[in-house]
């Protein structure tokens, strides 16, 4: 449908891939996802301005679903988890990503060595 993609979403959807990969390890709320990504690498810092729209978009696409839950500090928080469809998409997206990285590596290898 003609809905414009949010800025920052590239061909593979890096942000989507990161979110889905985190959720593949289990349900988590928005803040947790942001913190997890930051904890892995400073380079993966995700702006709140993109994270929440992305979560809602993925949910509206039926890739993830959400429920109210209780956070580790006993606060009400919205927890996201993958739907069966989302699970399939993670695998597909990961292999897409790997293929692309491999292709790009082949292109830049001669320059690096």
């Amino acid at each position, binding site marked *: *449908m*003609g*809905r*414009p993609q*949010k800025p920052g979403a590239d061909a593979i959807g890096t942000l989507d891939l990161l979110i889905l990969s985190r959720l593949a390890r289990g349900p988590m*709320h*928005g*803040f947790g996802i*942001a*913190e997890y990504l930051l904890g892995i690498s400073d380079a993966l810092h995700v702006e*709140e*301005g993109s994270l*929440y*729209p*992305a*979560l*809602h*978009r993925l949910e*509206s*696409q*039926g890739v993830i679903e959400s429920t109210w839950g209780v*956070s580790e*500090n006993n*606060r*009400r*928080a*919205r927890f996201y988890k993958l739907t069966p469809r989302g699970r399939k998409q993670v695998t597909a997206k990961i292999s897409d990503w790997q293929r692309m990285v491999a292709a790009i590596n082949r292109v830049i290898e001669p320059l690096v060595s």
Partner: protein
Amino acid sequence: MLRQLWLDARTRFAALFARRHLRSRADEELQFHLVMLEQRYRERGIAPAEARAQARRQLGNATLLTEHTLDSWRYAFVSTLIQDVRYGLRGLRRNPGFAATAVLSLALGIGANTAIFRLFDALLFRPLPVKSPDELVLVTQQIGDQRSLMLTNGDREAFSASDTLSGLCASRHSRIRVTRSGESHFAEGMFAGGNCFALLGVGASLGRTITEADDQLSANDLAAILSYGYWQREFGADPSVLGRKIDLDGRSFTIAGVAPPGFIGLEPGAPADVIVPLTSFHSPLLANPDVHWLRLLGRRKPGVSIEQVQADLRVRATRIPQSPKANRPRQPERLEVVPAGSGFGAARMAFSLPLRLLMGAIALVLLIACANLASLLLARTSGRRQEIDLRIALGAGRARLLRQLLTESLLLSVLGGLAGTAIAWVTTPVLLRAMSRGRMAMAVDLSLDGRTLLFIAATSLLTGVLFGILPALGAIRHTNLAGALHGARLKTGTRRWSAALIVAQVAFCMVVLVSAALLLGSLRQLQRVDPGFRKEHVLLLTIRPDNYKGQSAVSLHREILHRLAAIPGVEVVTSFMDAPLGGSSITTRFFSINEVGPGFFETMGIPLLAGRALTEQDAVEDRPVAVISARVARESFPDRSPLGQHLDVFGKDKVVVGVVGDARYRSLRQPAEPMVYEPVFGPGSYALRTAGDPRALAGFVRRELRDVARDVPVWSLDTLDALVDGTLVQERMVSSLCGLFGVFALLIASIGLYGRLSYSVAERTGEIGVRMALGANQAGVLWMVLRDALMLSVCGIAIGMPLALTSTRLFRSLLFAVAPTDAATLAAIAASIVGVTMIAGYLPARRAASVDPVVALRAE
């Protein structure tokens, strides 16, 4: 995939309406995020207040973030549209005066456009409900400056063989007398060749259609097809009518079928109730090869152009043997083949140009209304300058703002379109009735169809964009934050635009008003024409006693004359074939013939110039005498007295016994045609000269007639005045509507001018105060504002004049005894425009002149 799209659409549309729920959820999520961030900062040893501030900073604009998050759920377009509409409605509610003015003027403009369009479409454009209507062509003939749709049997035979056509349908429209259980009424009849239904590709909704087998002189069972509407009206949609007998013009027909609902014959404006085979047309015309009495409709073979058909038919026409008795010389080069996909007919031809003209005039009025609204919006957006600048400064996208401003104008035009639709629904039937008052009974299908809806939608949207785009573009173009913070002024660019819009309105006004004035002038001239007879106090009655023959017809005639003469208030009674201005039935190359009874000239008030009138003896004894009109006397006997001269009338030798004045039979526009009057004694049409109002006697006439012969229905009963009036229906309708449009246009334009001057006076209060403080007197200030109004209207007139002159040339044929360049008319219109604009300018001017310099300067 489809299923996915559907699910997707469902959740999104659900989200559209679950907005509140989603918003609270997003808010809560962000709140949680904020709290967590704050907590993390505090864990790093940052002071609580600072931690909170940092968390807020990191999260950014929470409201905007919520909006973006919610956007993920919806089709962005739909949601912003709804938002814009809400916003627009709020804006309109804030300014109800403006909204009401705008919607009202748009409603009138769009409504009038739609009303005219419906007639226009029904009569001129809508394709016939037949197979491939674009292939249909009509064979016509140019006679003098008029197009004749009638052709001869000879033409039919010759053209049927053409290989450019896949078929030729010959038909004839004629009223038919239907007798059911002793009562008679007239229905509209279409006499159609046996191949017509097959050629048109029209089936029957019940029973069957007419076939070649029906259309044989030897056919022993006459078949009749009912139109769907007539079947419903007269037979209560009873399916058992099939096979039933029906008496048409005194002969028994079998109802063989019912036509499909949309099919009402081939002539828009003159629907057929009953369709019967052409060979059942009970007339000597059927065998006469020379008389023009048939309409010929052909279907082009695929790939053949109209020009090719025309060329082929012209060649074929030259081969038709010319009979010596034909009263018109054959002119194949005058044969013209025209497209007939949307039907043909007299109503179409008569109203084609007038409706086009009205359509053009009302479109101009709508344009004026658009220009007016554009200038109102222009003033309004400069009033909102501050708000818009502020919104741009706060980061609103220009495209988004443009869309929002356009949504507002579209909102107005859609509201106007809806109200206009209601107006059109009421007015079109009124217009149609006005058009039907004349010689032509008009009945067209005005049902709500996609074309009309499309027209309304397109007109509404187009007007909305048209008047909205300029102010909207102006609003978002030049902006600065400084402007947002200070009060805003009408910019010179904006001012120039609004002046241009006023000038355009005045120019269009000029065009519409000049057209209206010329048409009204023509109507007045036509009403002043001396028709050659006295139309007042005459009642005309026409009957069709086909079932009375020979002696019984004569005694019926005598009885009717006797009874009518005995009605109190009747001075003279006479009989005739053609009434003045009722058209001529018989026309030879030299003159037209009217068969009249004794007392005709006296009743009609046609003066006897020489000799004697026709007497009852002349008629009863069928004496070979004739009375001629002055024009025949002039043309046929230029050098001698016509009395006692012999005249060849259709091969019969007649002696001229009298000369009468010229009376017009065809039209008030043309000079009276040469007429020869022959005596006749038989039933048909009657004229009664009455002492008082002839209309008052109509009831008596009907009663007397029913007493004499119950089986003879009244064909028509009306006054001669009404008949004459009926010939001017088109002129009256066009000129009065055009005049109405003109007044409307002028009113809109003067409101626009008033609005603009009021605005500029309000804006220049300070300046005016300074001027007055420096010694300008009230008259000077008054004049300063009025000069503005004068300048604008003079510019408009200067531009409108050549436009008016160009456009009036397009309908010169509608004018009568008025030159399209009539200087007096142009001057009068220009003067009245100046007058009205000065009145519109006077109120703001007076307001300007009464500015108190002290108050004005203090306010500055």
